[in-house]
């Protein structure tokens, strides 16, 4: 049997990073897979997101790049070195923040027994525009929903097999992954992932945010302060202005100074943190390095 190309899975960072299961390929050239809680058997993946942070952990001569790629909710960790020459060359020319598309391979790092950190080793990277990103969010939302459905079906079966799920119309690779994932992850909180999909779709429909359905019995996100919405937006506007003002060397506004300035405007530290998080979520600011905030 010749090697058939591994499909490029579409998986949001939060799902991918929650993976604690790996199938190591045995023997020469046998592929390895990261199995996500929703049963994606990821060897290759396709990601489009905002490259927010880029650091060369290697040397000038032999760069080893670490990049953070945000899908608007969570971040993927990318590592590229001398074995990924094509991606390394492209990375060295990118100025964050930028929307990039990545085709890459799943990688794991296990510092101790039972602990797994997942990352992505890019094969190809290219700078793209917002429409490519939006399309990716849609596709990824769609395929995440399909996985949620498949896991839900499998949970209702006594002892689901690949054939049972394939019969329901799920792709064989997904059926295979779900059957493997279920005994490992046991009770997967599907509502958490439904909530994630809703949040992703919300990014595509900004005018709808606020009246999105919260899935029933989803963990509540805390009391909503709908009346204060206008006030919140004013405060966000204010913080953005402060960030602009404090970003003197174009490397971001130091958080310590931002806290001081915000306090003068009557915004306490906990409130500032909330505003910053909201701005981060909206993709209006990012953290180029820890402790700095910068406008996008």
């Amino acid at each position, binding site marked *: 049997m010749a090697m058939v190309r591994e*499909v490029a899975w579409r998986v949001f960072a939060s799902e991918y990073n929650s993976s604690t299961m790996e199938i190591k390929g045995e023997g020469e050239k046998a592929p390895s897979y990261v199995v996500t809680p929703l049963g994606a058997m990821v060897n290759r993946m396709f990601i489009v997101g905002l490259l927010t942070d880029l650091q060369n952990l290697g040397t000038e001569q032999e760069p080893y790049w670490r990049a953070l790629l945000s899908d608007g909710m969570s971040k993927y960790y990318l590592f590229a070195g001398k074995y990924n020459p094509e991606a390394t060359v492209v990375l060295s020319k990118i100025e964050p923040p930028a929307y990039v598309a990545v085709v890459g391979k799943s990688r794991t790092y296990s510092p101790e027994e039972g602990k797994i950190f997942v990352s992505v080793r890019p094969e190809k990277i*290219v700078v793209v525009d917002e*429409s490519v990103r939006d*399309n990716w969010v849609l596709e990824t*939302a*769609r395929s995440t929903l399909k996985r949620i459905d498949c896991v839900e079906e499998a949970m209702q079966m006594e002892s689901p097999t690949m054939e049972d799920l394939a019969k329901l119309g799920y792709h064989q690779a997904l059926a295979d992954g779900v059957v493997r994932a279920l005994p490992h992850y046991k009770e997967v909180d599907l509502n958490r992932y*439904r909530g994630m999909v809703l949040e992703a*779709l919300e990014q595509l*429909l900004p005018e709808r945010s606020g009246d*999105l359905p919260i899935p029933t019995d989803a963990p509540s996100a805390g009391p909503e302060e709908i009346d204060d919405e206008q006030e919140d937006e004013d405060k966000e506007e204010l913080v953005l202005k402060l960030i602009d003002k404090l970003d003197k060397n174009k490397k971001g506004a130091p958080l310590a100074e931002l806290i001081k300035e915000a306090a003068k405007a009557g915004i306490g530290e906990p409130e500032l943190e909330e505003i910053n998080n909201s701005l981060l979520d909206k993709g209006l600011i990012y953290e180029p390095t820890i402790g700095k905030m910068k406008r996008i």
Partner: protein
Amino acid sequence: MNKEEIAPHVKEIARVLEGKVKEQEIEKDLDNYLNVYRMSLEASKRHIVRKYGGDPNALTKGERKMLSQLGLSEQSVDLLVRVMSSNTREVVVGGTPKTIQSGLLADEAGNTVKFTVWDVSKADLKAGENYLIRYAYTKEWSGQPEVHLGNRVVIEQRPQDEVKVPDTVIVPQTGSYSAPVTAKVSELKENMNNITFTGRVLALRSKEVETPSGKKAMFTGIIADETGKVEFTAWHDFGLKENEVITVTNAYVKGWKGIPRLSFGERGQVTRPKLKFPTNEELSQAVRKSIEDLERSGGASDVVLAGTVVDIKKGTGLIFRCPECNRVVQKGVCQVHGKVQQVPDLRIKIVVDDGSAAITAVMKREVTERLTGVTLKEALDEARETMDPEVIGHRFEEKLLAKPIELRGNVISDDYGLSMNVSEAKLVIPDVKTEAEALLAKIEVI
């Protein structure tokens, strides 16, 4: 194992115990051994038989299967079947005459399979009777499994009510032994036979061929239904006309690299049913398929698919070909014809992936020029200017990588997976907002 999977094994144990123990009892025991104590199926069965004083060696060692589960080269398999037809005849094997039996078996699910008995003293299958056949084997015949009963076989006649064959199973009088199947284009697969098919003739050509019995007219063309198009060959003059809707019986499928071709001849019949059928114009559109669909069917003529460009293969961009054999040459040297006067050409080879499956797509010059807006002449000029023939490939990569794309063409499959010979390609800008709204509406319903 669930109840359904356990059932045939419960029957098997009950058979060995000759009715001494109720099936419910056996089922409870077997479920316990398998699902509570997690013992192997084989060991569980032996334990239960021994527990009730039966002979564990009487259990079959072959695997009990339904006919639909039969592989093409089963070594030892057990079947519970009804004999639909059985004929005994003399054949000469290695110079000595031998009596063999052949016919058709059916099971409760309504599937059928041809069989041959090679030693009539071991097994004499009578039409209309039910049998448990143990230690049979299968061989491939025209892509389908055929059951063989050799000298190891053990048969046991079973009561009439044990196998009830659905009424839909018909035993054909002549020709093909398998039951007729009604199929749509999307269901056609290599090596199917005895198909009943209804479609509209979109294109028709006649050809004269030489046969041992003189010149003969044959007809080829394209026939379509709402699920797609398929090429066909008619080995007999049925008076076919373009644009008419026909129903063909006893057709069969031959394929080339997964692209099915419908064939029918004198054994088939052509009728012209009066029914509402999609028009020529509707059927001429390429049918939209997901890459996953194509993976399942193995290939198709004239389909449209969508996905994202996830890789650009070597050999994309400006290439040079041998004028003799059309092979791609490196530095003006053809691996067959040596130093040649190379001919420039444009080509794109990409991998398109929709998150469920991937396909390799190849575009020749015209398609490449239309997609990229770069003509061969411009590509040559640019390569000359920059002294770098690779520059065109890089430009195509930048333009295409990570972009949503829509492709039309013929799809084949081989050991390396699916590939498409592209006739039309275009980058698409999906209407993300509308689709996101639709997706949201779907979640809200749940």
